[in-house]
């Protein structure tokens, strides 16, 4: 992300506007310990804390995935805006129990994880945030094995730089 050399009134207006997209101060992470309301299945807290994609996959599933063309990942070439990137995945695999999305270049790779009870179609569409140009990975857990698909999404700011 471009770092703005000198904050001043109008720039602050833009900073505030782009605040939700520009991830400043990546270093210090005041990741508030999430107050977990009682929920029957466990929220994969550890997995969401991992920085790298590999650690997040290991924390979430405890095994590795193999690429498969049965997992169809749909994401834009160039994201219209890093804050709202429409992404969807469908698969022809059966006995699917879980679908997850990993954004490699984000501060925390695991973005979202969905539990797919039987009777639910193994497909999800959602809108994710991406800090910068990144590799996007979708992983489908089917019959205990992991299958993945990846796509490169280009992300940059807009405007001519006020």
């Amino acid at each position, binding site marked *: 992300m471009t770092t703005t050399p000198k904050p001043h009134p109008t720039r602050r207006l833009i900073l505030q506007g782009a605040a939700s997209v520009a991830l400043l101060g990546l270093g210090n992470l005041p990741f508030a310990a999430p107050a977990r309301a009682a929920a029957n299945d466990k929220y994969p807290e550890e997995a969401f804390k991992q920085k790298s994609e590999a650690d997040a996959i290991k924390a979430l599933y405890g095994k590795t995935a193999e690429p498969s063309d049965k997992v169809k990942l749909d994401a834009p070439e160039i994201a219209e805006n890093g804050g709202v990137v429409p992404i969807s995945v469908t698969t022809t695999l059966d006995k699917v129990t879980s679908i997850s999305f990993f954004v490699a270049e984000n501060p925390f790779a695991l973005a979202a994880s969905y539990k797919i009870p039987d009777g639910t*179609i193994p497909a999800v569409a959602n809108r994710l945030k991406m800090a910068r140009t990144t590799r996007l990975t979708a992983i489908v857990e089917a019959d205990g094995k992991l299958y993945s698909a990846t796509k490169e999404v280009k992300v940059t700011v807009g405007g001519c730089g006020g």
Partner: protein
Amino acid sequence: MASSIRVRGTSNGDITEVQALIQHPMDTGLVKDSKGELIPAHFIQELKFECNGKDVFVADWGTAVSKDPYVKFSFKGAKKGDELKISWTDNKGGSDTTTAKIA
């Protein structure tokens, strides 16, 4: 206060398609406000959809889900008029729930 959840469930007899848009800031905790202070992390962690007493879809979300999050999925085994129950909880213990009839 109107619910923070907008949901649309449409069934074509066999498969019900569900779309939901939820009003929530989804703050990552890494972004500074205009005064230069970090806005604390505030995001939905779990979103659950139930129908006829059974979970049909459970989402575990991190900080990378967009503000005012949107999700779409489909499931079998429900018909027009069934009731869909949607509820979410966030990392500050906030929550909301609503129900909607499948059209």
